[in-house]
């Protein structure tokens, strides 16, 4: 763990001036040094620093910036929350439970009770993958600017079954699975002002840039997250399967948002977590449900379609069956 300077940013504007790198940039430019990076609660950052994966020169704290920890919900605008809102705050929010059930389930099943009390949603979306090679000081992998992906020939039981060719790390945020299913947007603030984009566009595949998981620029921070108002009759659910039922990372997780009219499904959004380097829409499965009455048989068929085209690795064939099941069960639980 390296020594670093610490400063509390008084405002978003100041924070943007103070920072000069994202965490991924700080990692691949480690030999240059001089990285000034932002942190929220710092749970993932501290983990990376302790492992020697990143060694910032200066850490800029965002927690005290006024307004970043606000949460609002109303029927006209939907849900919006700042990046400093903790996971526990979302998990315990009654409106979230009532209106965005899948998000409630995802937040309530994330990490440990202790971490949920500390970790923020901004940090959750920006955290780095849990791949054990990426997290190991002894493995200089593609994601850290090296030239090998150790997971390709190595222990890949927890890795992706889609988009595995370059770097099969799965996205570490299981909450993102639910957020993408709700068409959540993130607001990014940078030197040139703000931009809003869908979370599904924010996350990027390794082919875009293997060293990071999103397109946040060097001096950009997430300043807001919004979920649209849902059409009446929308039902959602989320299931995460870890090796353990107690605190665990996801082996596979699925979020389902169904717009229902009576017993008929008008539209469906189905997202797979821990299946690909980004939360992945299961478009064929979504298309299948459109305009149909949900039955167990249909849900099972959706499960099959959801894993179509998967390219499992040596040790994770089980994920195919797992996702089939989770998709089926999430659909049935949602309606």
């Amino acid at each position, binding site marked *: 763990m390296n020594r670093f300077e610490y400063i509390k940013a008084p405002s978003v504007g100041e924070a943007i001036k103070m920072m000069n790198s994202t965490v991924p940039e700080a990692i691949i430019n480690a030999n240059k040094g001089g990285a000034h990076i932002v942190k929220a609660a710092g749970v993932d950052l501290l983990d990376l620093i302790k492992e020697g994966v990143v060694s910032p020169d200066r850490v800029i704290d965002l927690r005290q910036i006024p307004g970043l920890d606000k949460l609002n919900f109303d029927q006209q605008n939907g849900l919006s929350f700042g990046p400093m809102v903790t996971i526990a705050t979302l998990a315990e929010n009654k409106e979230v439970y009532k209106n965005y059930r899948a998000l409630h389930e995802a937040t309530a099943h994330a990490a440990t009770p202790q971490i949920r009390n500390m970790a923020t949603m901004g940090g959750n979306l920006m955290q780095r993958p849990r791949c054990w090679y990426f997290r190991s000081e002894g493995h200089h992998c593609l994601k850290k600017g090296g030239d090998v992906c150790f997971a390709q020939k*190595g*222990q890949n*039981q927890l890795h992706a079954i889609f988009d595995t060719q370059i770097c099969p790390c799965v996205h570490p945020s299981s909450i993102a699975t639910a957020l993408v299913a709700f068409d959540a947007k993130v607001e990014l603030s940078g030197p040139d002002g703000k931009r809003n984009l869908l979370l599904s566009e924010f996350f990027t595949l390794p082919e875009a840039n293997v060293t990071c998981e999103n397109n946040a620029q060097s001096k950009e921070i997430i300043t807001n997250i919004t979920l649209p108002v849902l059409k009446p009759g929308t039902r959602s659910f989320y299931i995460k*399967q870890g090796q*353990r*039922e107690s*605190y665990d990372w996801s*082996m596979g997780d699925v979020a389902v948002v169904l717009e229902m009219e009576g017993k008929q499904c008008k539209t469906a959004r189905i997202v797979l977590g821990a299946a690909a380097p980004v939360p992945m829409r299961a478009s064929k499965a979504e298309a299948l449900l459109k305009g149909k009455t949900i039955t167990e048989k249909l849900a099972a068929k959706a499960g099959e379609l959801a894993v179509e085209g998967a390219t499992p690795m040596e040790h994770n064939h*089980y994920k195919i*069956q797992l996702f089939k099941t989770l998709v089926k069960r999430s659909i049935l639980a949602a309606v």
Partner: protein
Amino acid sequence: MADINKKKIVLPLAPNEEFGSVKHLNTKKIKLPHGIPGHNLTEIEREVSADEPPALAVNDQLSVVGKRTKRIDAIYKVTGAAKYTSDIQLPGMLYGKFLRSPHPHAKIKSIDVSAAERHRGVHAVHILSVEPGGAVQRDNGHDAPAETYHVDKLPVLRYVGQPIAGVAAISDKVAREAVQLIKVEYETLPFVVDLDEAMKKGAPLVFEEKVEQQQTGGDVGGEAGAGQQGNLRGPSIGSFYGGPRGDVDQGFNESDIVVEGEFRTQVQTHCALETHGIVADWQTNMLTIYASTQSTKSVRNDLAELFDLPLSKVRVITEYMGGGFGAKFGAGHFGVMAVVLSKKSGHPVKLMLDRKEEQTTAGNRPNSQQMLKIGVKKDGTLQAIDLTSYGTAGIGLGAGVGRVAQDMYTCSNFRMAQYDVFTHAGPGAAFRAPGNVQGCFALEQLIDEIAEKLNLDPLAYRDKIDQSEIRKVERKKGAEKFGWKRKQPGSDSGVVKKGIGVAQGHWPRIIHVDSSATVRINKGGSVEIMSGVQDIGTGTKTILAQVVAEELGLKAEDITVKIGDTTYPDGPGSGGSVTAGSITPAARNAAYQAKMQLLGQVAGGWQVEIADLDMEKGEIFAKSDTSKRMSFVDATKKMRTNQIMATASRPDDYGGFEVGNAIGYDRLGSVQFAEVSVDTETGVIKVDRVVAAHSCGRPLNPLQIESQINGGVIMGVGYALYEDRIMDKETGYMVNANLDQYKLPYSKEIPHIENIIIEQYGAHSSTDASGIGEPANVATAAAIANAVYNAIGVRIYELPMTPDKVLAALQVI
């Protein structure tokens, strides 16, 4: 004495051989309880030393022993006041940190520590020439630190994490920084970390030459003189229970049914919450050590030998320690390094391993591949058992698994061949019921297969072939509590299938005679017991208080327990479930002798015979004249001296030993029942319920015994379903060297556990107690495996039973 010197008598013992049995000046005959209350309790006469206390009645006639007694040190644990080794802070104390090998196999071409030495806040740097006490984990009763290799001045690196050099600095962080400043040039060499790969011809050799090192795990496999070919060492064909029996081939020829299977178990790491570590304070007159250890004396003995110090000049203190499970014996490489750095720097040095070091270098339960074959007659009689096993303890030894197959059921034809396989991985260490846990997973599944072939209920079949009286009672009581009802395998309809299973375990009744305690009665009535024995979380402090209180007619809370310090008489190491059976007889005997001294003074004062006096409920009274009565406290106020004190040691078992000076007659039996749910669509297994029926001789404190049984079961759940050291074959690293990806059971994985504790008297000693640590852990994984088979109708032969294996067994993937 003088005569012996003059006559040069040739002693009938080899130079390193210790004296065996002990003769007593005077003996007496006493009658002791023997057997199982409610089943076959009787009395047995034993001839014992004349200074032994009278026989202790069965538990229901006692007032403190055998009663649920609150842990006397719990208050310090729940308030955070308990000081563990990791909590020790001494004036001027430095922090030690290792540079460790980043390669699984390499030679060091050059090493430059100058930048580390110059780093601000660094006080001492030391490069290891060899790795003492570390490459080989220590075991009970091994008195000398072993060393495995010496190549020039610098060690050959044989696993990722092997220590190279140590640094002492003003903080843990500064020490870490300095470690990173050490420049090493490595010559990397081919390596192998996988069991199967290591056995192949032409596999990279872990050791070029034949190595003789102590076995790691208290189990067979690494015995001296065994053959070595490639990375294979063995076979070992026996255990302390003896060697092969009968004619196995003929046994199979005469069998009507033969079952066989290949079973595999994984490497399990201990994951004690407090890591291995030591605080060393080298002073000219005394080396003081705070150690997180299961044996204070093993640490003292190691360091005294290595640093050429008399035993009297090394003091080891373990007031509280945060779990060991078998891996914490001896000084360890960290302990030796801490002492060197303390000596070099002139400061106390604390060297606690971090979690990654703990996972990779501090011990593990070796894995196993077991080919087990059993032949039976039509009536179920066991005709032949044949076992071949391979397992790796990394660079260490001790991967044997055969004792359960050899000893649990009577079978006149038995043969085993056990091989250790060297790999470039951290050394194994003893781990809660070493060998038996692995062996039980195989044996108890095959026994179930036989029962099925014979169309017998698994319990009924075990009734037939199992000679153990204690397990007979455990099966009966366990089945009642569990509500055991035979169920067709795979008969549940639905996606989540329930299943039930049972498995049995056994563990020898081991004690260490090198176990002593002093009891001191002070004026004013305070009573102390002192011993070097340590409490590793099992409750040793409390059972010592109970035993002394029972003898003196006091309450457990009246006794001050001072243990975990080699200043006091040596206690046993706490491993192999030896502690209760070893130290409580010494404690009772010392209490009895101190009591006799006090009663002697009272008898003198009251002008009665000592034999007429007794102590009960805080009072001393004359049996012949109950008006003669005085409180214990008042009596001590009249003592002629400020203190009365007696020291006693563990005598040999009253009935002698079955093997050596440690292994007693009869066994600690266990029978565990499990109920599981298997989700056939996800492959996820959940253990819903466990009924665990156990014996541990005379149960001293059922409250603590329950806790230990729970702990054994939960560890077994982890072993069965979750835990696995995952090695990357390409780079030789353990990829889950943390508590995040190394999966242990947490709150929601805990089944509903019910305990049955059976009193079993064997007239072994003045307390007749035994331990429960290992027995609690032996049968769980096997019971779960049998329950999984019962649920889904397909057997799983490999641990841990993770979703991928379940789905593969169900042929879903």
